[in-house]
């Protein structure tokens, strides 16, 4: 299998990239790490005459701190995210997602923007983006908008990005004190997996009442897109964080919040069962982290 031929463009600024995108029209594809795009081109799942590489745009691979948030450039790689202290400290569930994606070689190239735009229901960083209430930062040559990740995905492989838009990055509010988050994925082998189920959870509790005051759960590989698990989340609110309520939340997520399908990687039945187990486990661990953070 050979890559088809195409024109290769390498703009050095977001402005130039947007200009190119506008002038070349819908046919032009944005190339970040290429770990999805080049595979799709080779397999002839998509065709294009023009590739616009984003690698030359330095601004897109920066991780910067604002007052209460961190901005992650869309072209930061998994390796970069995983080794950046502000990410390690504030977003452990995202780091876990990055560490689980593919292999060393893939992680050196794969970007978080590419992972989001590829919009696989199984994408490894996507549940974390959902539970951290990330905003996607989108830009065209004449306007910018910010979209909550919960509204970003519109179907398998589909997102709300418009043809003339570029995803420049994500804004992730820094979680406050007394909170913790965790991510677990399950596959057939221990590395280089396409997830059967992946779950992230975020918990915040009131240190005085010892009750849960914020809970966010995101489920991957069990619906057309990565999804939040609203019914399970609501069972947790106001509860004392302990095994029984994590188990109950898992049961709720399993029964009410997921809609898996059968494919050659695994059955819907198994995926559904695992939503319960992984939800319980991520919550348990998220709470442990929340507690240990305040000691």
């Amino acid at each position, binding site marked *: 299998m050979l890559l088809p031929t195409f024109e290769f463009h390498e703009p050095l600024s977001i402005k130039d990239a947007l200009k190119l995108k506008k002038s070349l029209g819908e046919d032009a594809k944005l190339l970040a790490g290429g770990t999805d795009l080049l595979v799709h081109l080779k397999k002839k799942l998509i065709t294009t005459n023009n590739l616009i590489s984003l690698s030359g745009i330095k601004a897109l691979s920066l991780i910067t701190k604002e007052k209460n948030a961190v901005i992650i450039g869309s072209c930061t790689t998994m390796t970069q995210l995983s080794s950046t202290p502000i990410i390690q400290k504030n977003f452990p569930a995202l780091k876990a997602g990055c560490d689980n994606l593919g292999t060393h070689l893939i992680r050196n190239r794969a970007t978080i923007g590419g992972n989001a735009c590829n919009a696989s229901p199984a994408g490894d960083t996507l549940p974390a983006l959902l539970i951290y209430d990330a905003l996607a930062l989108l830009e065209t040559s004449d306007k910018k908008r910010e979209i909550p990740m919960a509204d970003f995905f519109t179907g398998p492989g589909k997102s709300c990005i418009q043809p003339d838009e570029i995803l420049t990055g994500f804004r992730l509010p820094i979680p406050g004190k007394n909170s913790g988050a965790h991510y677990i994925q399950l596959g057939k*082998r221990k590395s280089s997996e396409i997830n059967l189920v992946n779950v992230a959870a975020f918990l915040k509790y009131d240190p005085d009442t010892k009750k849960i005051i914020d809970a966010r759960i995101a489920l991957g590989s069990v619906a057309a897109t990565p999804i939040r698990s609203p019914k399970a989340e609501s069972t947790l609110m106001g509860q004392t964080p302990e095994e029984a309520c994590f188990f109950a939340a898992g049961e709720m997520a399993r029964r009410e919040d997921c809609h898996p399908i059968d494919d050659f990687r695994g059955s819907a039945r198994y995926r559904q069962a695992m939503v319960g*187990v992984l939800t319980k486990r991520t919550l348990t661990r998220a709470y442990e982290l929340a507690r240990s953070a305040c000691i």
Partner: protein
Amino acid sequence: MNKFDVISTRAHRIDTPDKATGQAMFTDDLCRPGQLYGVLLQSPHPHARILSIDTSKAVNLPGVKSVITHEQAGYIKYGVSPARYDETVFAIDKVRYVGDEIAAVAAVSLDIALKALSLIKVKYELLPAVFTVEDATKKGAPQLHENSPGNLCAEVHQEFGDVAAALKTCDIIKTSTMKNKRQDGAFIEMQGCLAEFDNRGLLTLVSSTQVPHYVQRTVAMVLGMDVGKVRVKKPYVGAGFGIKAAACPMELACCILARETKKPVKMNFTREQVFMYSRARHQFTHTITTGAKKDGTLMAIKHECCLDGGAYTSFGIATVYYTGSLLGGPYKIANMSYDGKRVYNNKPACGAQRGHGAVIARALFEQQMDMIAEEIGMDPMELRIKNMMDTGDTTCNDLNMSSFGMSECIEAVRIGSNWDKKKGNMPRGKGIGMACGFFVSGAGYPIYRSDTYHGTVIIKLTEDGGTALVYTASAEIGQGSDTAFAMIAAEALGIPLDNVRLASGDTDMGVDLGAYSSRQTLMTGHAVKQAADHAKTQVLEVLAEQLLVPLEKLDIKKGFIEFAGDTPDFSALRTRYIKEHRGWIDNPDSKKLTFKEASRIAFLEKGSIVGTGKYKPHNLGGKFKGAAVGTSPAYGCSAQVAEVTVDMETGQVTIDNITDAHDCGKAINLTAVEGQMEGSVSMGIGEAMHEEVIFNDKGQVLNNDLAEYKIVTSVDMPRVKTIVVESCEPNGPYGAKEVGEGAIMPTIPAILNAVYNATGVRINELPLTPERVFFAIQDYKAKMAK
């Protein structure tokens, strides 16, 4: 015990510098001036009649040099076993699987060749297809081959002793079934080849193959050429595991394209084509009944098996026999019956893969051993030792264990894994299990009927006296055979490994049946040793004459001549040598006469010193039909202990430790032996845990890449403790026998027994995906609750 100077060490592999620096040349690294690129047109349909093939547009595309179909390739049938030739290079009247070859194109670039492929118009009449054994054997099922009614490719019925009578005397009878999944070899180097005719009509095919010899014969036969006009060479090869152990249609198409275009032609499989071509381990469905007395004495095995064969025979006839014959040991069993069949269907053909035919039968049987042990309350190791054959014993189907360190292997893993302390004392969710296995050390007979030597070797001492050149047609495919043979040559000649150079993998160098059935160390190794002894004797004969010393008093060790008793005055020889090297500053001044001086003197007296060696097995047992499959000059054997952790909530199994003891007779190179043991374990774990080629309902492989076909990653690989047992095989060079395949035998059942130990659940289908294990645990819980 002999003290060795070269073998029995951890010498560095002779190919390490090339491979570590990336200088090693594999087939795809090679280019010839004016070379064309060839590609194959393969069927998109699992079963269809070919109504017409129109190549006119493709032929006329600028840059295209040749388009061939069966019209150019001809009608000659080939395959693996001559009695079972059922393939032609290109489909003639119909295609039988998605990937069946129809045509090939050679063009000045790969791009153009691929473009041309899309211009070939084939008209098909689609035929109903069958993809499973069940569907293929139904009444009225579509038939793949005219002369194989019922899609039955092969069937075997054997009985040794009287199974029915023996079962009547048993106190315990266990019957169970097991099924694995079709495997892919998942070697790193995809098949590739480069064919070229010279101006005198000699065809040279460079190919990524395990068996230059068989490829040479098949190419000659299919192209209608003299064998002497076909030369097959293999450069470095990135493994084969059995899949590259026969000529493939791409090699044949490549040669035909080279003939048609009079240009060098290069072809490669993509990874997708590797999956399409397949030829790896079959899917087996076994039912075994084992009977024993209440003291644990094994009485009888009744074995039935069905192989899901795919569209052609390939190795299948040998596979179906191996499946039965290799249950004959390692335990004393007087009564054994086997009913095996292999069924055609519209999937790619399966073939041979590491542990040919025997892996899943072993996996099921070794679980039954554990079931029996549990029922009578005996330790599984004790039960096995109780029934173990002894050195020199012959199985009921005539396999002779001329050396047999099986009980030593069990003892080694018992101690190595701390079995006695762990067994029975593990918390729920953790388990320990063990199993044994054995395998041939070379097939007793070539694939075609012949009295041919299985290996010939030539060793020439360079005329300057310094170096031994070893020429063998054997196949180094990554396993380390070149190093092993260089070490054997050095040991036998009595010189350092550094002074041996070796060239291999070229049919011009002699006959060697190649790298399959774990044969080379024993068979080629024999021929190497003989050739080295022959060359050495010639040198010593000259010395004996010149120094007036009896031949028996002379030897060569570490590069020096050793004299038993007094050292005679050899100064005249040294002077003669030094005179030839006037002005050289490194002339010999050692107390001992050097090999270099001696072999130079021998050359001066006799001309080039050439030693030759050859090997073929002695007369092996078995007069019954099929006896030729399974008989071998020797058998390697092994025992393994697996320790696992099972996540009872998700079904995920983690393999924590493997302790592996293997009797390889004598380790020529210890590190290489351990490498084979670890490699076997990793392949066994892959098959046990996640590997499975998955098809859709159109006969297409869904997971045709290494992202979705899940071999073991370094993270899945447990710590493997390897223990080498040496039983000194009388039929092997320096006592050596196999390690390449036997070491995979116990891996799967050891894991299954450990999972049972952890969960209380026996799982009778592979792979042990989290899903399969999870539902097995759920079903078991539901059953227990009732």
